[in-house]
C-alpha cells in the first residue's frame, strides 16, 4: 500500500497540513475545513494549550464603537509603530480586514466584553492614535476582559471541532519534505506513542508561533521554541528580521508572566524609585501609552540611572490601585490573579513590580502578504515563492510588525492572515489537485533526527537543560533591550561555540513513549538555530530601529538600513543578507519615514 521504503513510518495524505494549533493555525484550518478540504493540524500540544491562550489585552480593529475610527489611522499607527520597517501592503491588508474579522469572531461566539449599547468593548492601547497621530488616543483594542487570547483560541478550537478538522495532537514536526524546490509534506513524531508519521500534503502551512524561549526571562510559554523557523533554516530557507525581538515593558519582575498593556490602557502608569511618573519625560503626549519599544527603553534607562526599585534597583512599579477595586476586578481580573500569584501583590492596593521581558518575535519566516513563503536572491528586488509552503502568525514575518509590534496587533494578525492563508491555499489547491510522488526514502532525515538522540550514550556530554540554560543566559545578557557592538560580538562568539555543545549533549531518557526529554532536545535544536540567526542579524545591523536599540548607533538610518535582514545557515555559518521593505501599500499612499515621537 504505502510506497515509502519502510513500514515503520505511517503515511498520511491530506490536502493541507498545518503545523501548529494556535489562533493562526486554527483560523486557517477552519477556513479550509469549512470549504470541505481534508485538513490536518499537527500540534506538539493539545490545541487549547497553544500560546495564543495567554494573550490578554485584546485585538485592534477600527470598529469605532466608542470614538470614530478608521482603518487608515490604524494603518498609520502600525507603520509608525513598526519604525517604518513594516511592509505597507501587508499592513494595509491587515488593518482593512480587521473590523470584518473581529465581527466574524463575535459571530463565532467569542465572549467579547460589551459597552452599554451592546457593542464590543474597545480599550486604549499603546501607540494607537486617531487622525494620523493628531487626534489623540484611539480606543481600538477589542477585548474579552483581559483574557482575549483565551477566548479566541477556545472559540477557534470549538469551530474546528464543528468543522471536522483532523487534529494530530502531541505530534512533533521533525522536518519539511522538500523536493524540486517545493514543500510536499512534513515528517512528525507521535510523542504519546513514540512513532513516526509522514504527512504528505499539497500545501504545508507553518503556524508554529514565536521563539521567546531563546531568552532566559520571557512571557512566552515553554513551548515557544520557534519550531517553524528552525524547520525552514534546516531546509536551507531564510528567516527574516530576527534581531527585532520585542521586550514587553511589563513582565512581572524576575518571574516573567505578562502584565497586559491593558493595565496602562485602563489608566495605570509606571513609577520609578522616586515615585516619579517618568514616562511623561520620554513620551510627553502618549506617556505610558507610547509604543512598547519606547516604554521598555525608558524603564531600562531609569534603572540604569539608579532609579530602579527594589533591593537590586532593577525594576519599575506599575500602579493601578487608583482605578478602584471594582474596575480592576471587572476589566483586569486575570491581572489581579497573576499579580497575586506571581508577585505576591494585591494590585487593588499596591503597585506591581515590572521589568522589560522578552515577549514577541517580530521576525520569522519571510512571506508576502498572501502568506506565501518567499525567498530573495541576492541583488534582486523580486520575491520568489517557495511552492506549497505558507507561514502565518508569530512564526511568519509578513511583515506587519516591522521593528516593533503594537499591542493588540498580534491577535489581529493571526486571524487576518490565518484567513488570508486559507483563501490563498484554496486557490493553490485548485491548481494543484494531486499529491506529488515523493522519494520513497523521504522519511530518513526525520527518523535520523530522533534516533540520533535515542542512540547516543551519555558519557561526557552536557545535559540538554544545561545547554539550554547557557544559551538563554547568553541571549539575555548580550541581546537585551540595549545592545552594543562589543557585547553583541561577544554574544555571537559565545552562541556559535555553544552550538557545538548540542552535538555533544545527551539525554537520560532513551524510551519512546512520551519522552519529553527528547522533545526538549529537539526544541533546543530549534531554539539554537533561531538564537544564532538572532545574534547574527543583531550584530550586523548598525542602527537603532524599533526593538533593536544600540548605544553606539542611537539613530535610525533610513538611507542604509531601511531593509529587512535575511539569515540562512550555510554550511556551518549564519549568512546575513538583506531585502527591501515593501513600502508601497495596496491602494493608498505610502507613509514615508519620519521621526517617531509619542
Amino acid at each position, binding site marked *: 500500500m504505502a510506497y515509502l521504503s519502510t513500514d515503520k513510518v505511517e503515511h498520511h495524505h491530506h490536502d493541507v497540513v498545518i503545523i501548529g494549533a494556535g489562533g493562526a493555525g486554527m483560523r486557517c484550518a477552519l477556513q479550509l475545513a469549512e470549504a470541505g478540504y481534508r485538513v490536518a493540524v499537527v500540534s506538539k500540544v493539545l490545541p487549547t494549550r497553544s500560546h495564543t*491562550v495567554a494573550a490578554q489585552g485584546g485585538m485592534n480593529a477600527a470598529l469605532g464603537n466608542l470614538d470614530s475610527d478608521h482603518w487608515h489611522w490604524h494603518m498609520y499607527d502600525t507603520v509608525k509603530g513598526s519604525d517604518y520597517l513594516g511592509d505597507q501592503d501587508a499592513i494595509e491588508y491587515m488593518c482593512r480586514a480587521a473590523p470584518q474579522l473581529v465581527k466574524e469572531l463575535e459571530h463565532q461566539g467569542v*465572549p467579547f466584553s460589551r459597552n452599554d449599547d*451592546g*457593542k464590543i468593548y474597545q480599550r486604549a492601547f499603546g501607540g494607537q492614535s486617531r487622525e494620523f497621530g493628531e487626534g489623540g488616543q484611539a480606543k481600538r483594542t477589542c477585548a474579552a476582559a483581559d483574557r482575549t487570547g483565551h477566548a479566541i483560541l477556545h472559540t477557534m478550537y470549538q469551530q474546528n471541532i464543528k468543522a471536522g478538522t483532523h487534529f494530530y495532537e502531541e505530534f512533533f514536526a521533525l522536518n519539511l519534505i522538500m523536493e524540486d524546490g517545493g514543500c510536499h509534506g512534513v515528517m512528525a513524531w507521535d510523542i504519546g506513542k513514540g512513532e513516526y508519521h509522514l504527512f504528505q500534503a499539497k500545501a504545508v502551512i507553518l503556524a508554529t508561533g514565536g521563539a521567546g524561549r531563546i531568552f532566559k526571562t520571557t512571557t512566552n510559554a515553554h513551548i515557544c521554541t520557534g519550531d517553524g523557523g528552525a524547520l525552514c533554516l534546516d531546509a536551507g530557507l531564510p528567516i527574516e528580521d530576527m534581531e527585532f525581538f520585542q521586550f514587553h515593558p511589563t513582565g512581572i519582575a524576575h518571574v516573567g508572566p505578562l502584565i497586559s498593556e491593558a493595565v496602562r490602557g485602563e489608566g495605570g502608569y509606571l513609577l520609578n524609585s522616586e515615585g516619579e511618573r517618568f514616562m511623561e519625560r520620554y513620551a510627553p503626549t502618549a506617556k505610558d501609552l507610547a509604543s512598547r519599544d519606547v516604554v521598555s527603553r525608558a524603564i531600562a534607562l531609569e534603572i540604569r540611572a539608579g532609579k530602579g526599585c527594589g533591593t537590586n534597583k532593577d525594576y519599575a512599579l506599575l500602579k493601578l490601585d487608583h482605578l478602584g477595586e471594582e474596575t480592576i476586578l471587572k476589566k483586569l481580573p486575570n491581572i489581579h490573579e497573576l499579580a497575586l500569584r506571581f508577585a505576591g501583590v494585591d494590585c487593588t492596593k499596591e503597585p506591581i513590580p515590572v521589568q522589560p521581558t522578552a515577549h514577541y518575535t517580530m521576525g520569522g519566516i519571510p512571506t508576502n502578504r498572501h502568506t506565501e513563503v518567499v525567498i530573495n536572491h541576492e541583488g534582486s528586488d523580486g520575491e520568489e515563492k517557495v511552492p506549497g509552503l505558507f507561514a502565518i502568525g508569530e512564526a511568519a514575518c509578513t511583515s506587519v510588525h516591522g521593528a516593533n509590534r503594537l499591542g493588540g496587533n498580534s491577535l489581529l494578525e493571526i486571524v487576518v492572515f490565518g484567513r488570508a492563508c486559507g483563501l490563498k491555499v484554496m486557490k493553490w489547491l485548485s491548481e494543484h489537485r494531486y499529491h506529488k510522488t515523493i522519494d520513497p526514502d523521504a522519511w530518513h532525515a526525520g527518523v535520523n533526527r530522533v534516533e540520533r538522540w535515542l542512540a547516543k550514550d551519555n558519557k561526557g556530554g552536557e545535559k540538554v537543560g544545561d545547554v539550554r540554560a547557557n544559551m538563554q543566559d547568553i541571549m539575555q545578557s548580550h541581546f537585551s533591550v540595549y545592545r552594543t557592538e562589543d557585547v553583541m560580538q561577544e554574544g555571537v562568539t559565545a552562541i556559535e561555540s555553544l552550538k557545538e555543545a548540542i552535538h555533544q549533549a545527551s539525554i*537520560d531518557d532513551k524510551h*519512546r513513549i512520551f*519522552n519529553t*526529554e527528547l522533545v526538549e532536545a529537539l526544541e533546543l535544536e530549534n531554539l539554537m538555530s533561531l538564537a544564532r540567526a538572532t545574534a547574527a542579524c543583531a550584530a550586523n545591523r548598525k542602527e537603532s530601529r524599533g526593538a533593536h536599540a544600540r548605544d553606539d548607533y542611537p539613530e535610525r538610518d533610513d538611507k542604509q538600513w531601511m531593509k529587512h535582514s535575511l539569515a540562512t545557515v550555510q554550511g556551518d555559518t549564519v549568512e546575513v543578507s538583506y531585502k527591501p521593505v515593501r513600502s508601497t501599500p495596496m491602494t493608498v499612499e505610502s507613509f514615508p519615514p519620519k521621526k517617531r515621537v509619542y
Partner: protein
Amino acid sequence: MNKTVKLEIYRFNPETDEKPYMQSFEVPIEKPGMKLLDALNYIKWNLDGSLTYRRSCGEGVCGSDGMNINGVNGLGCITPIEGLKQPIKVRPLPNMPVTRDLVVDMKHFFDQYKQIKPWLQSNTPRPEHERLQSPAERAELDGSYECVLCGCCTTSCPSWWWNGDRFLGPAALLQANRWLKDSRDDAAGERLDMLEDSFKLYRCHQIMNCMEACPKDLNPTKAINDIKRALVKRKV
C-alpha cells in the same frame, strides 16, 4: 537560602514498569514564591531527565499541568510550594489512564467536551455588525468562559469515577451551561434535550469536589444546578 523541599512523585513507564511506584526527590528552594512546576522542572533538568509531565504557559491559563497534589487536584504552575505538607505527594489526575508518570490520556475528557457541542448555534443570519449583547447578558458568561479545560474538576468527581463513561462530568457540564447562558445562542432547547438524561447530567450528587478542585475558582456545581433548574422550569 539552603532550604529544600521533599517530594514523592508517582512514576510509571509503560515500557519498563509492571506497576507504578512513588519516587522521592529533594529539591532546593531557589526563590520565594516557588511553584510546584518549578520543582518538577528542577528535577527534570538536574536530577532525572525522564520525569514526565505536561507544561506550557507556566501561569495557569493553558491548563496543561493538572495533577493531584497531596490528594487535591490543581495546576502545578500556580500551586506554591510554600504551605504544602511535605513530602509533597504528586500523582497524575485521578481515574485517568496514565500514559507515563504524571501524563494522562485526556481523550475521553475532550470527547465529553465535544459531546455538548461547545460552539455558538444561532438560527438567525449573521448580521452585518456584531450581535448585540448587553453588559448584563455578557456577565452571565463570567464564571464559565474562563475554564481552561485542565480536567481538575472532572477527575476529582466521585460520580464521574463511577460513571465517567456516561456522566459528562463537571467540566463539560460547566461548558454546556455556558452556551445555555449565552444570549446569542438559539439552541437551548436542543441542548437541554441532550442533557436531560439520568446519566449525562443527573449523576451529579452535589459532592462539590469540582468546586474545591477548580484552579480558576469556577463553580461547576452551581452550573449543574442551573441546568437542572432550567430543565424543571421548562416543564412547568
